[in-house]
């Protein structure tokens, strides 16, 4: 049984004074997320990622369709004690301190009073905010707020965690920490559904990705599969600054950096290139097949539907 099963969720807004112009924020979406996996929900800004999350959280109501989370209807309030949600650019009650906020949320999530205090300390330590007692949230930096956001999402030890652009606004250190945290969550057996438009994060973290654009799901697949297809190119690096003429004839693109040269050429010409380099007695440093990146898959998916007549 999938942890999250989206069954045709759809959202159309009626815009305009007489509500005549419908705007499709989300076309009927069918997507399943398996138990214990990390699924990346990729798409450019305005693709419908946040709309999907808002629908799943019950913040907005679908025009059609339904979803099941952990086997129950997504509107079932009991389900909510087992899910955590970090919204995009979260905003919290700024007159509260971090502990007060987590205490409030903990009570709302039904964390037993006895365990509440210790859980709060534990989760604050986990997200790297142990020394913030007494400081009101209005004084927190963006990165700190993001950490508080993650803290409130996992405080009640949910089985499924939904994160909307969890890395946004973080510096590289922060992003690294969040990535590590997400991997920890996975190792604890939790399911993570997160949306982002930063592909490198998705590539590093996700088991599977789903690409969405203009409200339509364009492709789903395991990261491995999508990027395993060798792009048919190979990268060769050698010592020195000289580029043999024969390599150029093979159609290699060469870049000289410092005292090494990096050349990318077709896989078929790999042997010929290596022979050419040996003849010139150049020292080979590395020979690596070039993998198709997620970015290419992504751009491909976006383009395909646009040329095929596209979404409304």
């Amino acid at each position, binding site marked *: 049984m999938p942890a999250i099963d989206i069954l045709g969720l759809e959202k159309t807004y009626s815009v305009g004074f007489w509500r005549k112009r419908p705007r499709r924020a989300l076309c009927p979406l069918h997507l399943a997320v398996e138990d214990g996996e990390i699924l990346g929900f990729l798409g450019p800004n305005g693709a419908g990622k946040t709309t999907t999350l808002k629908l799943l959280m019950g913040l907005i109501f679908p025009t059609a369709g339904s979803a099941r989370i952990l086997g129950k*209807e997504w*509107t*079932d309030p009991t389900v909510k004690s087992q899910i955590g949600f970090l919204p995009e650019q979260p905003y919290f009650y700024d007159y509260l301190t971090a502990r007060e906020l987590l205490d409030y949320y903990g009570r709302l999530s039904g964390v037993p009073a006895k365990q509440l205090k210790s859980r709060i300390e534990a989760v604050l330590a986990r997200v790297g905010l142990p020394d913030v007692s007494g400081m009101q949230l209005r004084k927190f930096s963006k990165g700190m707020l993001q950490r508080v956001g993650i803290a409130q999402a996992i405080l009640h030890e949910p089985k499924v965690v939904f994160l909307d652009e969890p890395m946004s606004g973080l510096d590289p250190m922060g992003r690294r920490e969040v990535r590590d945290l997400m991997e920890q969550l996975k190792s604890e057996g939790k399911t993570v559904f997160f949306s982002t438009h930063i592909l490198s994060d998705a590539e590093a973290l996700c088991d599977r990705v789903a690409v969405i654009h203009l409200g339509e799901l364009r492709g789903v697949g395991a990261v491995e599969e999508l990027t395993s297809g060798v792009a048919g190119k190979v990268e060769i690096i050698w010592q020195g600054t000289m580029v043999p003429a024969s390599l150029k004839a093979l159609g290699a693109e060469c870049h000289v950096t410092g005292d090494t040269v990096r050349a990318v050429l077709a896989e078929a010409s790999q042997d010929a290139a290596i022979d050419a380099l040996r003849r010139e007695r150049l020292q080979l440093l590395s020979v690596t097949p070039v993998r198709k990146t997620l970015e290419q898959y992504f751009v491909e998916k976006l383009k395909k539907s646009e040329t095929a007549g596209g979404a409304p």
Partner: protein
Amino acid sequence: MSGSRRVTVTAGLLLLLSMAGSIAVVRRLDQVRSGATLEEVLYISSPKLLKRMSLGYEGLLADIYWTRAVQYFGNRLIVRASHYNLLAPLLEITTGLDPHLLVAYQFGANFLAPSPPNGAGVPDKAIQLVEFGIQNNPDDWHLYYELGFVYYLELKDYAKAADAFDRGSKVPHAHPFLKILAAEMAQHAGDIQMARALWTTTYQTTQDKQIRANAVAHLRALQVDQDVTILEQMVGLYREQTGHWPSAMADLVTAGMLRALPRDPTGRPYRLAVEGRVEVEAPDDIPFIEKGTPPGYQPPPPKHLESQP
């Protein structure tokens, strides 16, 4: 979606029930408190203070107090109350806030002067009120008329009434009738015609429903008085002609003195009582009559309401 549905249905039902309940309680509260807000009027010693407190909206406040005055009087009139203590203060405040509210003076003149249950029984206050009105509206002939009216009807001071009508007749665009009233007052004060003329003028010069209704009632009573006088004269004539009292009204018809059975303004036939007296069937229904009532008749006494004043 069933959870949400249940909430919607429950909230909807609860809303309707609470709404119905709140309306019921409001009505009950009205009964429990009848007149309570108005009692505050007794605590306001100075309309001038009230005027200042109204922050420039005295016109609106005057309208509110006027509405209260009319309601207060109307509610009590229906049940024939014995006290109308708040009527004078209410009208004083109304006119204090808006000295140009003509109908308030008319109302006061018509209903402050008569005794309960038809009025508050304070004719001096009525005079005071209308004089205040004249002070503030010296060119409005209606007010002189009202003044004269009070002197004539309740105080029976025909000299002062004539004087008031006279002053009024001198105002530009005055009703030409004022001059006539002033002149006739001296001679024919007690005549039915004079009373009838006054009530008719009152009826014609006001828009207020209650004042008009009151005028109509008086005119009907005058009609009855006149009818009874005439009928009793006829009965006397009959006796002279035949040597005995008629046994019933029908006899007068048979004798050719009347064309048909005479009826009073409520539509009931006049009755013949002993010794040639003509009476109305239901004197309670025709207030203000002076003739045609059985001997020893007392109009029903005014009621003491639980909630004073």
